[in-house]
């Protein structure tokens, strides 16, 4: 028998990232959205209005918690205070999935609040796998880790990003959140084949997909989350669905956030493609 205090606990179809500008519309109209993703770092305070809103949303929808604060790739020890607050939030909101990124955010106790790259080496596979295992042991549940977009490579890198993810999947039992836009952005920036990347990902570990819009700069693509999903990313997404199956998918839109109907329309495009492979 389930001990959950909420009625909806699993996610299917195309969800939306909940942003503060849409709270009121969601509260007032209770739109037919299958699930919402909440940015865990915005709800880590002991109280306050954001947390009250999150609990109100959770009463009506299943949610996932997605964060940037774990700093899994950092050389610093894990921040156990942060993880403790995340654990409290998980208990409070009962998310279907909890996710963070294969990136570092802080070093020597100083935080950048952005997702930064590290070299893909045997050492970093081991280091990050150990940290993922530590996090999962502490939280008492599996997490999903997401591939970030990147704009530089290191001389010391010994393997491709997909080989690195394969290494993580072998050394841990965590699941994967594949950001298709990030794969495409990195593929253009680093001149690799995004379809080769997709083929190398262990399909049984992929539990969620992210989609977003990039910005075309002079000589690279930048992952702004400020546009509709671009056509080549939709194409890559179709290939991802064919490989991973009907995977819950989230539309991320964080800058120049449009009105709710525009955001919902973008999610419905993904929903249609999910239905085609279901």
């Amino acid at each position: 028998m389930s001990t959950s205090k909420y009625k909806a606990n699993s996610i299917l179809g195309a969800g939306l990232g909940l942003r503060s500008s849409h709270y009121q519309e969601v509260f007032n109209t209770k739109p037919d959205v299958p699930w919402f993703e909440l940015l865990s770092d915005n709800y880590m305070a002991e109280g306050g209005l954001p947390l009250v809103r999150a609990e109100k949303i959770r009463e009506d929808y299943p949610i996932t918690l997605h964060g940037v604060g774990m700093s899994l790739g950092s050389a610093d020890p894990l921040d156990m205070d942060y993880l403790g607050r995340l654990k409290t939030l998980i208990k409070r909101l009962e998310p279907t999935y909890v996710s963070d990124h294969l990136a570092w955010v802080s070093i020597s106790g100083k935080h950048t609040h952005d997702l930064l790259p590290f070299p893909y080496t045997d050492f970093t596979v081991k280091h990050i796998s150990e940290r993922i295992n530590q996090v999962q042991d502490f939280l008492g549940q599996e997490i999903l880790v997401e591939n970030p977009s990147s704009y530089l490579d290191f001389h010391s890198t010994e393997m491709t990003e997909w080989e690195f993810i394969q290494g993580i999947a072998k050394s841990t039992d965590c699941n994967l959140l594949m950001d298709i836009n990030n794969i495409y952005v990195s593929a253009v920036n680093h001149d690799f084949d995004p379809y080769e990347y997709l083929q190398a990902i262990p399909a049984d570990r992929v539990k969620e997909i992210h989609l977003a819009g990039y910005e075309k700069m002079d000589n690279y693509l930048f992952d702004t989350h400020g546009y509709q999903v671009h056509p080549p990313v939709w194409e890559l997404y179709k290939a991802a669905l064919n490989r991973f199956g009907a995977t819950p998918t989230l539309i991320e839109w964080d800058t120049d956030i449009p009105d709710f109907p525009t955001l919902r329309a973008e999610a419905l495009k993904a929903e249609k493609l999910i239905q085609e492979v279901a």
Partner: protein
Amino acid sequence: MPFNQVQSLSDLKKLQETFYDAIFDPSSNNIKQASTYIIGTEKISEAQRLSIYRDSILGGITAALTHIYPVCVKLLGEKYFTHMVAGYLKKFPSESPDIGNYGEHLPAYIAEFKPAKELVYLSDVAQLEWLWHKAFNAPSDLSSSPEQKPLSELQNISEQNLPLVKFCSVSSANLLTSLYPIQRIWQVNQHDFQGDHSVSLDEGGVSLVIWRCADFGMRIDELNEDETKFLSAVLNCASFGQIAEIDFNQGLDEIVQRCIQTGLVIGFTTG
């Protein structure tokens, strides 16, 4: 082993510290050091790749501070605010994974920020915005300590024990005193303000309490001299006996009643 190998925790730490320094203190030497790790191409050089991350990080943090300090942005202009944040970041690194905790020292930094020295009230306006942000995110008073008793039980306290009573205010309350009319400056710079936008500094200073009441409504209330003294004592955990010795213009009962009626004082302890 070449300098840029990453095969141990100390290698990784060195890389990340070098990268951090190149982002937040982009001197030519720091960029040169960080570039030794990075593969540059004809399309994009090592330094350009670093600057993509720098712009992204500064942009993200500036956006977060803009959200906390919208009136300061309006008064300074976006360009100067962004310039100021870059300097602030260098002096005050973010020490919390929660970006909402970042920016506490900005009012003090503004007070020393030379390009804004003519805006003598700006530091106090910034302090008001920070306290608003803190109150918005303060814990609910429903989860207050078990020692806290409801005000309805005050009548059961004997006269002998009354001096030991310590009033409890809402946890979101903070006082702010300024030599300038900062509440009016804040009000006329709200995006939905309608009316006369002019404010004269001759209007004089104010004493304010910034707080969130039980129904999550945000409040900025102006206090008179007595209310300021009383609430300041309450926030400093003074006992009723100590408060009774303060020299008030009005009767203490009247001041206490007013603070209870507004919802600022919500309980008491006798410990």
